[in-house]
């Protein structure tokens, strides 16, 4: 089993984009633009003397940088959605490995490219810009593990939704991409949202994805209320994901090969 997992990790990590190097470079250029844009906005807010209510510039900058650098870990997107849309999901059933194991392994393997091409350079940039990236609370790493676990469960639930909503799968995916960044706290820390929105979003399954480990890491929130909520969501969402996926398999529609 370990050999199969390692082989899948290796294949996934070395898989290049369908469109080649230029496509990969352009994708990462966009990520850099978004990161730099957000870093500039925080600097402008602080420079403009905005009342940050106890939040420091370093907290905001490190939150933003880490959110971008570790985005694939904080908001898990397996290939399930795209494979369901193009029908290649069926191939997973023909391999001598569990479906979830394949999806999880393939996703983790794909992190390698992002970590090399973006995360590492982003951390170097952070050091260059004097952004302090030391963790304020080591429990953030446990929170990250819980986030990754919960992220897979949420993604599998979305896969079930896409199976059931066959003809509007693209729209569901587009909505998730658009809203996920805001609802997970990846774009803006919950502490920086108006009308106490952050307090309510932090309790949702989305809110305890990116927002939890990042907030604990930079010291915006204390660890244990969030970790308890993450454990609770993991306990609720994983059995639900397994049950619904089992029920959805019969409804899966695929075209061609």
């Amino acid at each position, binding site marked *: 089993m370990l050999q199969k997992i390692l082989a899948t990790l290796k294949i996934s990590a070395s898989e290049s984009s369908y469109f080649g190097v230029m496509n990969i470079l*352009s994708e990462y250029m966009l990520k850099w633009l978004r990161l730099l844009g957000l870093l500039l906005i925080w600097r*402008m807010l602080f420079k403009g003397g905005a009342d940050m209510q106890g939040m420091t510039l370093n907290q905001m900058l490190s939150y933003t940088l880490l959110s971008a650098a570790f985005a694939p870990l904080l908001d898990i997107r397996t290939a399930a959605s795209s494979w369901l849309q193009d029908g290649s999901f069926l191939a997973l059933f023909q391999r001598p490995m569990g479906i979830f194991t394949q999806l999880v392994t393939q996703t983790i393997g794909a992190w390698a490219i992002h970590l090399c091409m973006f995360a590492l350079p982003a951390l170097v940039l952070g050091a260059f810009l004097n952004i302090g990236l030391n963790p304020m609370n080591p429990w953030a790493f446990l929170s990250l593990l819980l986030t990754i676990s919960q992220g897979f469960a949420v993604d599998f639930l979305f896969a079930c939704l896409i199976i059931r909503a066959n003809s509007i799968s693209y729209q569901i995916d587009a909505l998730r991409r658009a809203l996920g960044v805001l609802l997970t706290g990846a774009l803006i820390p919950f502490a920086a949202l108006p009308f106490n929105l952050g307090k309510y979003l932090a309790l949702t399954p989305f809110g305890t994805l990116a927002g939890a480990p990042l907030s604990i890491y930079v010291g915006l929130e204390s660890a244990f209320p969030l970790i308890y909520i993450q454990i609770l969501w993991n306990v609720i969402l994983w059995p639900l994901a397994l049950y619904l996926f089992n029920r959805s398999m019969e409804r899966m529609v695929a075209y061609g090969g």
Partner: protein
Amino acid sequence: MAKLKHILNLFAISVRLDLNWLTQDTAFCLITVLSETIVALSSVIGIFLLALRFGGIGSLSADEILFMLGFYTLASGTMSLFFGGENVLHISRRIGRGQLDHMIIQPVSLPLQMITSGFLPITGNSSFVCGLVIVIVACFRLSIAVTAGWVLLFLLFLLCAAAIVIAYSYCFASFAFYYPYGSEEISGFAIDGLLTLGSYPLGDLSVFLKGFLFSAFPSGCIAYLPALVLLGKTDALLPALWVLLLAAFLSALATTLFKKGLKHYETYGSQRYKPFGMR
């Protein structure tokens, strides 16, 4: 006159094709429009929530940020409305997939096809309508004196913003004539790159960065600079002239590069044909 009638007929065909989707599969069409409306709003809501929370960003108040974001949404909505269909905006896809021949064999000139075939008045109006509503709300909140001159300036900036993004897309899309495989999605990246920073207020940046974002990578000219002028935060003449000149320059550059690419295409064609992505 006959030419104008011909153009209007071509637009009417696009309207009918777009309407077909609504009449043949209404539920699916409405869900798509709704999801695109939410996607359009979500692209700007982050910046607006920050502005609300902190009473503005840089020299712009929260309502002024709202106006800027409304203009941005309206500009991107204008592009989607008039050029969103048939991959006209993302022309590199058609070139890269070897589908340009579909256009060349039509008894309508390429420029005319590009102007008329992308029109999506029913399903492509989400961002346009959202942007319009946001701009109107912001104008009321800011008590902007909406004169005829102001409206003309607004429309000029809107046209220029759309022209800048489309021309930028076409400049990069010309690579697809030479590298069809690797450049298939290059238009998308060029557009997304511009629009990513297009919704950000650029207030306290260094002169060098501002210069870069107002020229070589003109995302500052999409919404930020027009908003400054329309809100009366800066002198109107020079920025308006600059945006107009930039739009004209980029359009001319895009035309030149595209024509060069077409010449190359005439000789070498495309070894690549992908039937998906239709049109």
